[in-house]
């Protein structure tokens, strides 16, 4: 039960901090949120710089361009990149934080060699094609069909809520390869090149007014069988590997950023006045901020416990569901507090009256997705109840 970082961790921290101090300012401000070509260029340029400096794929094996870093070095990385205000993983999210790790765990040598280094260098953007209109929380009910024809699968169906599909080169797609098997046993996991004939991508604007989502229509798309990850019909197990990455460590860097966001709210509270006094002079508001600080500290300690338990390249444990559940609901509370602090300025999505309305409303609106994506809070509670606590299934 030791929180002390080793000398080599501290050496890693010092080098990383020094590198970030020059690299982050050089990266410049992010482009406008609707300018997707510019966003792809910005995010992939940062990924490339991380790679060249040796900080991409921290927990990935060295043979694929990773650093094979220890769990504690990964924590140092999250702490330092948040402190430095480094760019977010952005359009690299699916490749770097879940398609890639899934290939590391389950891919063939050829798939690993083909994709992993390119993902780490920012040369390959991935999207996710899991959900369908009839398969959200009940993901295993997905209907997109893949029929074997020689060395290809012929894939037809309709995927929805595909983040970054319109800028992606590849997608992690779940398809039904055995329509007669029980629903969990007829699914396969495919790597889908997004430039194949028969793929149509239509944007699906979010309630935040942003275009990161698309619908993907697949019409007799011929996908080589060699693009299948894992055995045919073993896709559900592979998916659970993917989802554990998404629920576990993928959020770690954002948790550290929330600490800074809370500090920003405290700064605003000391500037704005309500009923003739500074908002910060309200003891109730201070305690609310203090209480959230307690929860964030505890959450970060919980990440440390989880990371300490997971082996170097191991799959995060089921406690990722508990972390995701708490983190996402806490995020929404913090974002809501931000809107309350803005007062009338929260009516504008542009900065007004010297207050950062744009950022705070962006967080408040975007945070609504967190308790739905990657398994809704209700699904996470089922997972905790059934798979950790061992309670009987409802059906």
């Amino acid at each position, binding site marked *: *039960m*030791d*929180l*002390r*970082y*080793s000398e080599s*961790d501290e050496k890693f921290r010092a080098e990383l901090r020094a590198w970030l101090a020059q690299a982050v300012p050089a990266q410049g401000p992010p482009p406008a949120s609707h300018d997707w070509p510019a966003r792809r260029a910005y995010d992939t340029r940062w990924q490339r710089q991380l790679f060249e400096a040796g900080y991409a794929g921290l927990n990935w094996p060295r043979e694929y361009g990773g650093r094979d870093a220890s*769990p*504690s070095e990964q*924590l140092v990385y999250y702490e330092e990149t948040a402190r430095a205000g480094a760019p977010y993983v952005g359009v690299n999210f699916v490749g770097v934080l879940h398609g890639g790790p899934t290939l590391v765990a389950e891919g063939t040598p050829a798939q690993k060699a083909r994709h992993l280094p390119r993902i780490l260098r920012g040369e390959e953007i991935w999207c996710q094609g899991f959900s369908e209109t009839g398969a959200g929380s009940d993901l295993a009910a997905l209907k997109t069909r893949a029929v074997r024809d020689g060395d290809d699968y012929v894939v037809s169906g309709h995927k929805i809520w595909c983040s970054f599909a319109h800028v992606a080169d590849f997608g992690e797609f779940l398809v039904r390869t055995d329509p007669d098997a029980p629903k969990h046993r007829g699914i396969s996991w495919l790597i889908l090149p997004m430039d194949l004939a028969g793929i149509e991508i239509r944007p699906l604007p979010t309630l935040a007014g942003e275009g990161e989502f698309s619908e993907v229509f697949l019409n007799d798309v011929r996908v080589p069988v060699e693009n299948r990850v894992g055995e045919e019909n073993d896709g559900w197990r592979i998916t659970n590997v993917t989802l554990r990455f998404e629920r576990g460590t993928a959020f770690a860097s954002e948790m550290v950023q929330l600490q800074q966001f*809370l*500090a920003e709210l*405290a*700064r605003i509270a*000391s500037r704005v006045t309500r009923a003739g006094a500074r908002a*910060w002079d309200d*003891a109730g508001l*201070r*305690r*609310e*901020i*203090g*209480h959230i*600080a*307690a*929860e964030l*500290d*505890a*959450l970060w*300690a*919980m990440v*440390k*416990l989880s*990371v*300490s*338990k997971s082996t170097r390249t191991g799959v995060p444990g089921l*406690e990722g569901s*508990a972390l995701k*559940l*708490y983190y996402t609901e806490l995020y929404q509370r913090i974002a809501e507090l931000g809107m309350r602090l803005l007062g009338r300025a929260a009516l504008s999505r542009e900065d007004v009256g010297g207050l950062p309305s744009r950022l705070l409303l962006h967080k408040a609106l975007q945070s609504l997705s967190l308790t739905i994506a990657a398994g809704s809070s*209700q699904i*996470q*509670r*089922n997972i*905790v*109840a*059934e798979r*950790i*606590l*061992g*309670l*009987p*299934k*409802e059906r």
Partner: protein
Amino acid sequence: MDFRVDEDQEALRDGIRSFCEGRFALDQLGTLATQGLDRGAWRELAEMGVFQLRLPEAKGGLALGMAEAVLVFAELGRRLVPGPLAWSQLAAELIPGAASGEVVVGGLDRMLPSSDPVLVESLNDLDALLVLRPDGIQRFDPRALHSVPVATPLDPLTPLHVVSELGEGERIAGPAVAQRWRLEGGALVAAQLFGIAEATQELATAYAKTREQFGRPIGSFQAIKHILADTFVRQELARAAAYAAGATLDHPEVGEPSRAVSSAKVVAGDAALANARACIQVHGGMGYTWEMPCHYYLKRTWVLSGLFGSGEEHSEQLAQHVAAAL
């Protein structure tokens, strides 16, 4: 950095857990409540190392740290072990006989002014009463104090006296020790609260697996599952916070100890309260009866929550930490 409980710590925890399960069985709570402090059990706790844990070996201690103390106190919380446990462990460094369990030491936290009545836990069983004040720690002879017992204390296992006038005691330590004790005491009590959060989650989960309504275990209903999932999440958050408080007090270079203790006290206090309430709710009508252990956990939570700083006080302190870092 390896935040896991290591093998030695696991052995220590397992030892204290099996001792508490044998000595403080939940079906004995009613009997325990009618007796005063069991001095035999107190000495056995001392032999297990509960009080001398952090003393140096030269003083007969185990030379362990707050991390280990947190693990031990979580176990004491799980089994609702009664008595002034945190005070007696803190006192082991100053009061001869406290470490061996021969001298039972209780305490009173008067670091912040308040209009609260002067209520002392377990006064009849104390050999020494220590009072934390901003200017230091004072020792009182509990038998010399003018006090009246409270006929029906909230927690059946925590007897209380009202002390009409405290006056001045013998000064045995300065303000620095008083400040340090308040932090260490906060971490120990946070650990007990985490133990309560864990125990009530386990009790409620076990009950939901066996209790049947509508022809099936109630734990198969999502309405119950989601309550229990939340108890687990709170428990794990409390565990992480309590462990972090222990680890940070042992090695202040990893963080601000007062911040870590405040966080643990807030989070573990919330977890114990919400989980003990959920435990009663999941037990339904049985949960509302005296014979089930659920209410003892909730009542102990109310006792412990106010010790070494309330959740409100610690939240305010955390806000000051946030402001100071701007």
